[in-house]
């Protein structure tokens, strides 16, 4: 159990550093599309190596390929949008948005697989809605204050 908790913390640190290094890349004026290509190229190479090492071959069916292509495109667009957004807004809000997006497949699961809308999920959706309203309004007020300060 202690090892599991240690792994959890390692996961949190890895993902936290992922967003932090993305912000460092933005400060170093890295091109968002080239950075996204770099991330996906290295990760694809690693996964290909693992795939051949574990299974000894690379075998896929067409429905799985189509699913992987569609959702892989979604992932690349999401990371590109995140990398672009942190040049204009806060990295904390961008990263929170990346994680809040977990609500979308939860909604799709309810609709697609007929999963139950539990009390926890209802509360989560309610809080996510409140969070989005506060974040967007907060960003608007920050922008207003900034432009007011510049004029004044």
């Amino acid at each position, binding site marked *: 159990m202690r090892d599991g908790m240690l792994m959890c913390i390692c996961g949190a640190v890895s993902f936290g550093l992922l967003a932090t290094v993305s912000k460092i890349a933005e400060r170093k004026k890295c*091109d968002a599309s080239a950075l996204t290509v770099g991330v996906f190229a290295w990760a694809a190479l690693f996964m290909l190596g693992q795939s051949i090492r574990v299974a000894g071959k*690379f075998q896929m069916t067409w*429905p799985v390929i189509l699913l992987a292509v569609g959702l892989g495109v979604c992932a690349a667009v999401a990371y590109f949008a*995140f990398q672009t957004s942190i040049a204009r807004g806060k990295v904390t809000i961008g990263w929170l948005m990346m994680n809040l997006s977990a609500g979308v*497949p939860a909604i799709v699961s309810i609709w697609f697989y007929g999963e139950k809308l539990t009390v926890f999920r209802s509360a989560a959706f309610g809080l996510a809605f409140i969070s989005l309203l506060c974040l967007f309004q907060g960003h608007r007020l920050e922008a207003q204050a900034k432009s007011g300060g510049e004029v004044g």
Partner: protein
Amino acid sequence: MWLFLMLIILLTNGMSSFGLKVLPTWGFSSSITYAYLTVWYAAGLVCIGAPMLFKGLKGGLKEMWLGAVLAALSIGGQLAMANALQAGLPGNVVFPVTVGGSILIVAVAGRLFFGEKMHPLSWVGVVAGCLAVVLLSVS
């Protein structure tokens, strides 16, 4: 523009991991995961890389090595989560700790290293968002 980017992130990022939930329901074993993720990453690479090629844009060395660091952190995070689950820790502990912890780390780093000051309303949004993410992970 910022609002538009946030909406794109919201709609695309969550859906991108939906495939790993769909594969078992299609009767595929976990042995296909690496092959699936290879195509998944390759598709993302082509989606962003192809327009770059057409525009004649080239990436620099800093993008390549920072890309390697980011890929290692992404894969490291996924493997750490998988190992935590294999070590017997329940998913309703692993996901909230990992996701909630990463948001906390980013919020602290944003404040300390990048001097990001947020409006109090944005902080309310961050706290409500963290709670929502934790509840989504638990449910």
